[in-house]
């Protein structure tokens, strides 16, 4: 009756006999009647594949997608191009139906892929060590904060208000429960206020967390943050967009202690916000504090090269409450997607895609300003995303753009009250000059 269950009436009967029971009901006789479910679960009975797929398709059709709309929305989730090979690889059963690689002898595919992921992400960020991934960018922030606290045993964490508001909220909730103090650094002209940072840097500050390019798309003065923080013996955590590292100075080059971020841009679909791919990279000094899994290269008994999960004594299976993190599941399949993406793009491709993002965003910025309807929120360097203040009625603009099948950008007023009438606009390599020009044409048409 159920396609996923191979039992027949006859095999069931034989097995019940074998275990000495009369009926299936007897298998549950250890569950006391006090806690037994009376009657049936109140959900519909089974449905055929045909019925289910037409229903799910119907739900899908109720959504407007980035296939129908031109997407200028970003803010932590980006509409980048995904080469076909990425899905071809991660759709293979060998990757997506495999278990966590604890039995190394029969999990070399997953283990080697993670090793290559670690190599590529370390190379891209300029850091010494990368782990096998964490849930997403927002959870990477608190994992990094715990690494810092475990390393210098100070009990305060500073985070700039230019870090993604959702990341800050996740950090705040997590630290609040763990009794670690959460403090925000003010922003000035769209980037971290260095004077406010200096004022808040006390001997209790374990880590300073910044994001660059930040939530508004602006490139932060990370080296200044590193200098001030290190003088105070606080660690620096930098969240970054891996696409930007094809072009921009790396966390490693700037002396950052922990570089983290969201790697959804590397071949992972938007998928309404998840599953994405968090990464954590650190220096050698913090190696033994890295959360989650690490894959190492080694040899087997015949001297053949192989890969294993290593330094597992840090993990919760062995250390239980003394482990550094509770992370168990990671995002291995999405890490695989990113590894395939980075392999395809390679050394030159990552430079080229980063420069295309930069150029297209700067072109869009210039064109939008020249419509006369926008002004720069702050005149500061940016990468693929920028913030503008709209001079007209934002609601009318949004409606007009939607009519023309354009997702026009993100209005950050909920989290930044001062930014009434501002828009954060993302331009990836997927946007053509024609699409940008069309955006500007429509802007000019709005009253």
């Amino acid at each position, binding site marked *: 009756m159920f396609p996923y269950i191979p*039992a027949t009436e006859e095999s069931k009967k034989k097995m019940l006999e074998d275990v000495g029971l009369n009926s*299936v009901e007897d298998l549950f006789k250890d569950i006391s009647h006090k*806690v037994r479910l009376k009657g049936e679960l109140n959900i519909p009975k089974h449905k055929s594949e045909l019925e289910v797929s037409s229903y799910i398709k119907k739900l899908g059709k109720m959504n407007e997608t980035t296939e129908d709309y031109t997407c200028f929305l970003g803010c932590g989730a980006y509409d980048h191009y995904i080469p076909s090979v990425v899905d071809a690889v991660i759709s293979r059963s060998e990757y997506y139906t495999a278990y966590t690689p604890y039995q190394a002898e029969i999990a070399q595919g997953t283990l080697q892929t993670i090793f290559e992921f670690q190599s590529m992400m370390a190379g891209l960020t300029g850091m010494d060590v990368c782990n096998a991934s964490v849930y997403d960018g927002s959870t990477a922030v608190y994992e990094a904060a715990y690494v810092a606290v475990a390393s210098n045993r100070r009990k305060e964490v500073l985070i700039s208000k230019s870090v993604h508001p959702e990341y800050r909220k996740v950090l*705040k909730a997590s630290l609040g429960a763990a009794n670690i103090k959460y403090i925000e650094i003010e922003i000035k002209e769209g980037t971290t206020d260095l004077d406010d940072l200096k004022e808040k840097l006390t001997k209790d500050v374990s880590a300073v967390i910044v994001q660059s390019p930040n939530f508004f798309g602006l490139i932060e003065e990370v080296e200044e943050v590193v200098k001030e923080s290190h003088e105070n013996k606080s660690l620096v955590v930098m969240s970054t967009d891996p696409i930007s590292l094809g072009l921009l100075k790396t966390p490693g080059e700037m002396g950052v202690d922990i570089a983290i971020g969201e790697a959804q841009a590397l071949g992972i679909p938007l998928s309404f916000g*998840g599953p994405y791919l968090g990464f954590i990279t650190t220096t050698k000094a913090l190696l033994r504090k890295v959360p989650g899994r690490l894959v190492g290269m080694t040899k087997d008994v015949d001297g053949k090269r192989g890969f294993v999960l290593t*330094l597992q004594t840090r993990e919760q299976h062995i250390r239980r409450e003394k482990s550094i993190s509770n992370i168990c599941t990671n*995002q291995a399949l999405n890490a695989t997607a990113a590894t395939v993406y980075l392999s395809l793009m390679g050394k030159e491709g990552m430079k080229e895609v980063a420069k*295309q993002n930069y150029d297209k965003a700067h072109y869009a910025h210039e064109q939008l300003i020249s419509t006369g309807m926008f002004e720069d929120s702050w005149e500061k360097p940016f990468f693929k995303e920028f913030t503008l203040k709209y001079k007209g009625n934002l609601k009318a603009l949004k409606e007009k753009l939607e009519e023309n099948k354009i997702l026009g950008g993100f209005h950050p007023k909920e989290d930044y009250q001062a930014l009434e009438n501002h828009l954060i606009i993302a331009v990836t390599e997927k946007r053509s000059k024609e699409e940008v020009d069309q955006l500007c044409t429509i802007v000019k048409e709005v009253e």
Partner: protein
Amino acid sequence: MYEKVIYEISSKGKKGYMLPPQDVPQYEVPEKYLRKTDNHLPEVSEREVMSHFVNISSKNYHIDKGFYPLGSCTMKYNPKINEAMARLDGLANIHPYQDEKMVQGALRLMYELQGSLGEITGMDAFTLQPAAGAHGEKTGLMLMHQYHRGRNDLKRDKIIVPDSSHGTNPASAAMTGFKIIEVPSNERGGVDIEALKNVVGDDTAGLMLTNPSTLGLFEENITEIAGIIHGAGGLLYYDGANMNAIMGYARPGDMGFDIIHLNLHKTFTTPHGGGGPGAGPVGVKEFLKEFLPVPMIDKKDETYTLRYDMENSIGKVKSFYGNFGMLIRAYTYILTMGSDGLKHVSEMAVLNANYLKENLKEYYQLPYDILCKHEFVLSGKSMKKKYGVSTMDIAKRLIDYGYHPPSVYFPLIVEEAIMIEPTETESKETLDEFIKVMITIAKEAAENPDLLHEAPHHSPVRRLDDSGAARNPILKWQDIE
């Protein structure tokens, strides 16, 4: 066999991509912001990338290939319709910051999934945000923290866990600022009630329990345990790792649990992905609903909304709304199976486990010889004593016969533990084959222990040097370049 790392097929100038020509002018990047160092990425053609990943993937064992009797990990078949649904344009290509009115289908899917999970578990409200089981645990513990704090009951800083619990339970509790108290199991594998009574008090924040336990046994005294914890003012947390065993027969919500998490990849067939992504929705009883993370998904008339105005909420646990792609797969599965199918799942998962247990207990020790749920634990203790063959040797020998080994050395309270979970998606024929192999291995252990010490003999690599890997960590290609 293919033996290369991608960097070994890289050479300067090869490319696996092509972008449209840049159609806008070039813009100068200020010198001080430019990257100066090598990015250490390989240079490989598309054909070589595809071939490389296909070649290394063939070294993986996976559920579509064969049997995975992994206790507590619940490796069951991943229906292909789930994958197809998650890849639909309407669901894969939506941005989390689109207006609610543009994503009504997605919100409706999540709302309906919440409702189904609530009914299956007997809980009143669900959040779908946690990204994995352990993330669900952390979320659940944050809810406990917030609940006690809200009542100004500030001295509750202790979480009780049984000694058979998952390692993530104490780790999550520690990460959320709690102290951990372990209670021993009794001779029937349940919680030792007297020991529990001795440790509960006005500093108890809660108890974390897996039921059925990691020994595969249903906790006989669950209502009494709930009474003890609630009587002391604590909350009862359900680790949903073993929900696959009881669907349609019992619900944590009816057993007295206040907070639960579910591992969608264990019970609701989302694939394991070589280690993730997962999803760990958290359900609560009505009195805890106000503390759930924002946003909640609400329905008013026929419109679905994201609700943020919850002043007692613990805040956010993850950006956006959870691992949506996983939620699509799980909901597709629930619709396909329905109330009758899910009940049948648990029946067959439990029957299969008992069938294996009864047929193997003659050959391996069975520390708890009672009716089990969907998994059970054997011990290789006597085999080790008699022949010097460890559980690890047995596990590795299974690889030679084409099986993924069971979970080993867990739970920690059973010496030389071998934890087996067949799941409902295996046939009697598969189980019979497995029994035959397990018996053969038991005989080999007596007759030729070295055969097991040196296993596996037929895998892409043989036993790997773990201690060498830890002593001299090579964690990226650049470390040996």
